[in-house]
């Protein structure tokens, strides 16, 4: 192996770094539209899952247009905010704002059984990273119609179980309110009693993810408090 001068080494590294940076930014820019489309489809798909409609990558858009027919944004007092597209609201960014300035997206859907459902997006922290999902409420604004959760990198077999249908199906028909008081859904270690209308079984071995999930639902839906109380029937 030849000996190289320090000067050569510096020039070599600089050229290498610039070449690699150009290549990567080029690839990122060219592939971005396709990647963003995938994320959009994924979002629609998760939303459909929360009202118990499973879709494939191909028919997601059609089903979304068929079932989810309205979306709007409200503020923390429950008043509608004009001029904001609910679909493009990034929850993570909203959560950094002061509560009174946050945009709160709502999606309306009518599944095949004719129930008028609203879908509320939620986002919080699991053990390793973000967890997120959608909670669909029946028209009484109290009973959960269905949920969908997903995560970025929870432990497979433990925390990652939150996106299995076995866990998600427990939320059906749970109640968020006790009369006028918002109590949300508790994730109960050791298992919830069948009659418990506010509790679901936690995931064994996934305590921190379960707790994070409970906090996520509480924090996110509490902001809709006024709207939900005003619009219940």
């Amino acid at each position, binding site marked *: *192996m*030849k*000996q*190289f001068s320090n000067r*050569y*080494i510096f020039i*070599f*590294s600089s050229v*290498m*770094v610039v070449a*690699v940076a150009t*290549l*990567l930014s080029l*690839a*990122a820019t060219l*592939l971005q539209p*396709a*990647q963003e489309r*995938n994320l959009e*489809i*994924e979002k629609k798909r998760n939303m459909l899952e929360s009202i118990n409609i499973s879709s494939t*990558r191909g028919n997601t858009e059609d089903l979304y247009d068929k079932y989810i027919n309205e979306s709007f944004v409200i503020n923390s007092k429950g008043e509608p905010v004009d001029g904001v597209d609910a679909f493009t609201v990034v929850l993570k960014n909203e959560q950094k704002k002061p509560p009174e300035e946050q945009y709160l997206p709502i999606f309306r859907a009518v599944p095949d059984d004719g129930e008028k459902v609203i879908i509320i997006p939620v986002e919080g922290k699991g053990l390793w990273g973000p967890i997120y999902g959608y909670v669909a409420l029946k028209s009484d604004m109290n009973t959960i119609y269905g949920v969908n959760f997903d995560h*970025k*990198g929870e432990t497979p*077999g433990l925390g990652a179980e939150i996106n299995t249908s076995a866990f998600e199906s427990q939320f059906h028909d749970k109640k968020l309110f006790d009369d006028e008081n918002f109590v949300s859904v508790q994730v109960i270690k050791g298992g919830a009693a069948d009659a418990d209308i506010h509790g679901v079984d936690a995931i064994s071995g996934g305590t921190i993810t379960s707790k994070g999930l409970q906090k996520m639902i509480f924090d996110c839906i509490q902001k809709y408090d006024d709207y939900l109380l005003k619009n219940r029937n």
Partner: protein
Amino acid sequence: MNNQEREPIFSAKNLKLLTEPLGKNNPITVQVLGICSALAVTVKLKPAIVMALSVIIVTAVSNFVIAAIRQYIPDRIRIIVQLVVIATMVILVDQFLKAYVFDVSKQLSVFVGLIITNCILMGRLEAFAMGNKPWPSFIDGIGNGAGYGIILVVVAFVREFFGSGTIYGYPVFEKLGIYKAGYENNGMIILPPMALILVGLIIWLQRSRNRSLIEKQ
């Protein structure tokens, strides 16, 4: 490097580079490299196949690139240069997966990123590409990537078949009606330790058939 006469593209020597890692110089079962991802992505066939293809592409191309510029790489920063080449390739593969096979990229999640730390790559760059021409290095990369991939696919096949009762997502057992006869999927085989045991069994099988692989005491 002073060998001036041109050799044919698929000379016997080059072919050996391709076939040896599949068998008696397999990176997983003989060199015991890249075990961690072999345990992680072998629950189902589909991610295993995509992972295998990704590793083949990354090893082959980074081997080629390093071999092509090997005379210009300063010895003192060669490991850094190797890592930069590997990391670039892996990010490119990851971006492509995200754009065109989103579901698979979601399943593979962190493991694509972890190709960077897969020992097979650094091992091949340091041991082979730094001292050989681009074309043999490219073949060596494909061979080693494929040697890794073949074990991945075998393990994934067994785990998916017995663990979930499917082959590449096709519900074989259900179609055959075996569940009605009281059969249940083996839940244990889905867990990572079973992958290790399967790899162990493959190593045992290979060594009992090829005694030259057994270390002398």
